[in-house]
């Protein structure tokens, strides 16, 4: 009876020690008397109890490693606080277990020191603006270093870059000043442009006015020329007529005009005063001229 109980106890304990279920996302290493023997993948496994032991339970999923905030001095002597996050995945459980002691701590320190190395060789503006490049550089170094440990570092991201408070304030002021400068420059440019345009407009107006005047003068001159021409023509025609006919013909016209003028004076509103032209004698003379014409006309007959 006691033997039976012992056997049953042994079997039960054996089952407890020998049956291993590995859940997905993990791998267990098996050690036989402390020496690595094999790796258990997810699923149900039976190992030999007592002589085989589970050495390490390795998480094969991608994991997040928080890199604590640290102070880094940039190349231009600004002290900045930087924290980061690192994503890694164990791809070889055996190496991750036996090639390195305390993988987590090793990786954390590796990333921290490399952040210092990479960022310490940059100045602050570069740090703040070239995150992608920084991430890529750190990743390259860390990935290469963790390769012998069977770890694949997929991503390292700088989370926060915090310059000291007074520096941030100074940056803000610089930004403001720059914007202000830009605004002032723009304003001045606007004024300049406006003035130039105004001057141009004035110039154009004056040019147009002058052109108008010039044109007008030209036309006036032309008109006068034409008038003169016409007068000359008229004179020539008159003189031709005189040459062909008689001088007395002119006198006829003049006399007509005189008489007309006298008529107008006579019929004007203020009849109280009758203006006689100074040269009444010449009117009379012209009448005499008319008489001459008459005489001539009669004599020809």
């Amino acid at each position, binding site marked *: 009876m006691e033997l039976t109980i012992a056997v*049953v106890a042994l079997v039960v304990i054996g089952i407890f020690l020998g049956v291993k279920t590995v859940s997905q996302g993990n791998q267990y290493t098996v050690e036989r008397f402390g020496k690595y023997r094999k790796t258990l993948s*997810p699923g149900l496994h039976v190992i030999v109890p007592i002589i085989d032991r589970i050495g390490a339970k390795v998480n094969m999923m991608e994991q997040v490693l928080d890199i604590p905030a640290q102070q880094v001095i940039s190349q231009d002597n600004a002290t900045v606080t930087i924290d980061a996050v690192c994503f890694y995945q164990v791809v*070889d459980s055996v190496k991750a277990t036996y090639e390195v002691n305390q993988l987590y701590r090793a990786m954390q320190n590796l990333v921290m020191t490399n952040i210092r190395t990479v960022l310490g060789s940059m100045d602050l503006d570069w740090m703040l603006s070239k995150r992608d490049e920084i991430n890529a550089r750190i990743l390259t170094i860390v990935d290469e270093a963790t390769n012998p440990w069977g770890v694949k570092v997929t991503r390292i991201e700088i989370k926060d870059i915090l310059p000291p408070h007074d520096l941030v304030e100074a940056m803000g002021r610089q930004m403001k000043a720059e914007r202000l400068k830009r605004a002032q420059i723009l304003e001045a440019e606007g004024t300049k442009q406006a003035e130039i345009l105004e001057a141009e407009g004035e110039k154009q107006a004056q040019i147009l006015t002058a052109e108008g005047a010039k044109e007008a003068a030209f036309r006036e001159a032309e008109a006068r020329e034409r008038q003169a021409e016409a007068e000359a023509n008229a004179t020539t025609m008159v003189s031709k007529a005189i040459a062909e006919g008689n001088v007395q013909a002119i006198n006829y016209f003049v006399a007509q005009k005189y008489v007309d003028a006298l008529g107008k004076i006579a019929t004007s509103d203020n009849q109280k005063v009758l203006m006689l032209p100074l040269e009444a004698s010449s009117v009379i003379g012209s009448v005499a001229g008319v008489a001459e014409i008459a005489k001539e006309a009669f004599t020809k007959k």
Partner: protein
Amino acid sequence: MEFFSNAEYWHWMVFGLVLLILEMFAPGAILLWLGIAALIVGTLLLFLGELLTPEWQWIVFSVFSVVSIIAWRSFSKKRKLNEPEEDSSLNNRGKSLIGKTFTLATAIENGVGKAKVGDTYWRVTGPDTPQGGKVKVVGFEGATLKVEKSL
């Protein structure tokens, strides 16, 4: 001791069911086999009755605990229920990249270079190839991919 000396068949049945219930609450596929064994002993008791003395009952229980595990292993191997890691690319990055083509970020020199995979870089080993060349993944070893020139 009462239970050890004169157990009815239903005692075993209940014992087996309790073990199975415990297995539900604490999964680990350990109590499962004991539960199955207890149920088998109960069934045998039901049919054989007095032929099975208490000692034998316990020995049968122990034997069937071990036998059920071995039976399950051979069964799952035959039916490929417990698929080995090699057939699955879950939690196995290198495996999931086999057969795919990538561009080299740095030239392969002395057999080692870097290829851009997604948004990260993998170390690759293969024939020397200039930067920007296309390579096809044929295998992997840890975090290093084995590649050959892609046409």
